[in-house]
């Protein structure tokens, strides 16, 4: 073993086991895409992709050259030199530039796609300079999924923003809401270099927001809209906020509706919301807010089950409100009622009821957003935090078996592999809020680190460039988590792996 290799193996003084096999010496793996040229089968001369790109460029040049020439000739002949400077620039530069850059995407996503002309839509994307050639298969798959059609070549597609949004859209339409929520959260926190094309931000996100808005799930719609760009996403984001009972300027909404595309689709949503607003005053809102701690609890349970944002502070406030209902006097009343019902061990029954409630509060806290302030002098809050932490750590343990490096084979699609990791990511990041560093560091050293690291490397080796986008995100996340628990070896190796994955993803 070389000195360099020794330095890595010996560089695990904090009790780590030998790092995964991908790390050798002071740099990471032959890893992901750092394969030797011979192993990659490099050919001389341009590759197929190079030919396709050259052909595309040639077609662009011929088509747009012809169009520009015809516009120039016919408009010039018609105007006969009567145009001023501004009009000439408009006709000669701005309109051709718009036709070249924006028109193909507009044709694809606003006309051809919604009309079911998917071949035309993909052809228009091929003509668009805003679409990379390598994204075309994923965009074609997105068109299929958006039209609720099966995608026959899904297994050959890479994991990227388009396929991730297609999978999220499909899951959202099937009311499998946890999956799109996790995908949206991951897309909202992409590492630098992980591509999220502008057209995907506009059109793929729009479809997702519209799907949530169609079933009046405004919390999900707002969450999705935060990913997006463009006028329609801004309008839908505003409608989602309005649907969630925040202040809304009706004039602002109507202005955005006028400026946004797909006005016929959004008309019923805007009209329904603008009609419902005047009746709702602050007094009405206060009146409609749940009264009583049982009702507040139920409302929060409903919000958490619908994946709405539930702040940690709100859960702690609810727990504080429960205190009077589960104190010793309340338990004595419950015990008396248990005896009236003929139950033996009334005290135990009452305590069991309180325990069940505390468990439910811990479940809410484990799902809530935001950190639990420490230290807490309150015994109830301490109990809740401890139970929430246990639940979160258990969730991490539950997510780990799915991340088996040996199970990563050709049949496991890189996107599915990425989504399995998303389950672990969601559990881990929630645990960071309430769990604290020490238990997570122990879990990291005990099981998470080697398993996840091996899984990421296996995925990268198995699928190569198809998994580069997913690998980049996962390696970057691994490096961040390693930093959180103070595992310097894993930080360095995974930063390097992320860098290699980034090179493959570009």
């Amino acid at each position, binding site marked *: 073993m070389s000195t360099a290799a020794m330095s890595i193996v010996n560089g695990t003084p904090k009790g780590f086991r030998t790092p995964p096999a991908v790390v050798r010496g002071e740099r990471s793996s032959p890893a992901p895409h750092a394969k030797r040229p011979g192993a990659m089968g490099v050919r001389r001369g341009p590759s197929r992709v190079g030919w396709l790109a050259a052909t595309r460029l040639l077609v662009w040049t011929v088509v747009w050259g012809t169009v520009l020439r015809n516009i120039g000739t016919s408009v010039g002949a018609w105007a006969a030199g009567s145009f001023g400077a501004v009009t000439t620039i408009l006709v000669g530069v701005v309109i051709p530039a718009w036709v070249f850059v924006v028109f193909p995407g507009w044709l694809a996503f606003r006309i051809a796609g919604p009309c079911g002309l998917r071949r035309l839509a993909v052809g228009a994307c091929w003509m668009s300079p805003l679409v990379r050639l390598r994204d075309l298969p994923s965009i074609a798959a997105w068109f299929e999924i958006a039209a609720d059609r099966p995608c026959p070549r899904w297994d050959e597609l890479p994991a990227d923003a388009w396929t991730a949004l297609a999978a999220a859209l499909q899951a959202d339409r099937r009311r499998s809401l946890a999956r799109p929520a996790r995908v949206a959260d991951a897309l909202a926190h992409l590492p630098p270099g992980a591509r999220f094309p502008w057209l995907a931000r506009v059109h793929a996100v729009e479809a997702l927001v519209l799907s949530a808005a169609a079933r009046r799930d405004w919390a999900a719609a707002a969450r999705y809209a935060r990913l997006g760009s463009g006028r329609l996403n801004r309008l839908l984001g505003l409608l989602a906020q309005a649907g969630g009972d925040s202040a809304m300027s009706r004039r602002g909404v109507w202005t955005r509706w006028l400026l946004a595309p797909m006005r016929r689709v959004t008309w019923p949503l805007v009209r329904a919301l603008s009609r419902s607003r005047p009746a709702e005053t602050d007094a009405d809102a206060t009146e409609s807010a749940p009264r009583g701690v049982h009702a507040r609890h*139920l409302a929060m349970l409903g919000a958490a089950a619908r994946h709405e944002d539930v702040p940690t502070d709100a859960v702690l406030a609810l727990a504080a409100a429960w205190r009077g209902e589960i104190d010793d006097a309340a338990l004595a009343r*419950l015990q008396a009622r248990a005896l009236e019902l003929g139950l033996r061990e009334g005290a135990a029954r009452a305590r069991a009821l309180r325990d069940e409630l505390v468990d439910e509060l811990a479940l809410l806290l484990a*799902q809530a957003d935001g950190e639990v302030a420490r230290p807490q002098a309150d015994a109830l809050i301490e109990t809740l935090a401890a139970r929430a932490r246990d639940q979160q750590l258990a969730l991490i343990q539950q997510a780990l078996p799915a991340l088996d490096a040996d199970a990563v084979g050709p049949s496991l699609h890189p996107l599915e592999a990425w989504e399995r990791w998303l389950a672990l990511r969601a559990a881990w990041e929630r645990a960071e809020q309430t769990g604290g560093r020490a238990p997570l560091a122990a879990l990291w050293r005990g099981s998470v680190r080697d398993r996840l690291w091996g899984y990421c490397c296996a995925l990268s080796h198995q699928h190569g460039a198809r998994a580069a986008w997913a690998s980049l995100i996962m390696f970057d996340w691994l490096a961040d988590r390693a930093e959180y628990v103070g595992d310097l070896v894993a930080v360095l190796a995974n930063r390097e792996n992320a860098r290699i994955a980034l090179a493959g993803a570009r």
Partner: protein
Amino acid sequence: MTESLESRLRERVENPFFVLGVPPAATAAEIERQGQRLLSELAAGLEGARRYTTPLGARDRTPELVRSAIAELRDPARRFVHEWWARGLTAAR
């Protein structure tokens, strides 16, 4: 975790007292009578029997749900839990 939250939520809104539309203080005989009445109405296809009110809005009432509610309230230990929630939620309304 979400599944767990959903099952807890379902348990709360499918509280037997709400399903049967009886107050938490109802006697065993009242519960049985109301349950049988609802089952007959559902069998007859009466529109009014198909929905029940919960703090989170109206829900569908089915014969299975009614039978399950009757069975739950026959067990004193289960009734004890459901009654506590129903009392709290009814008082809030």
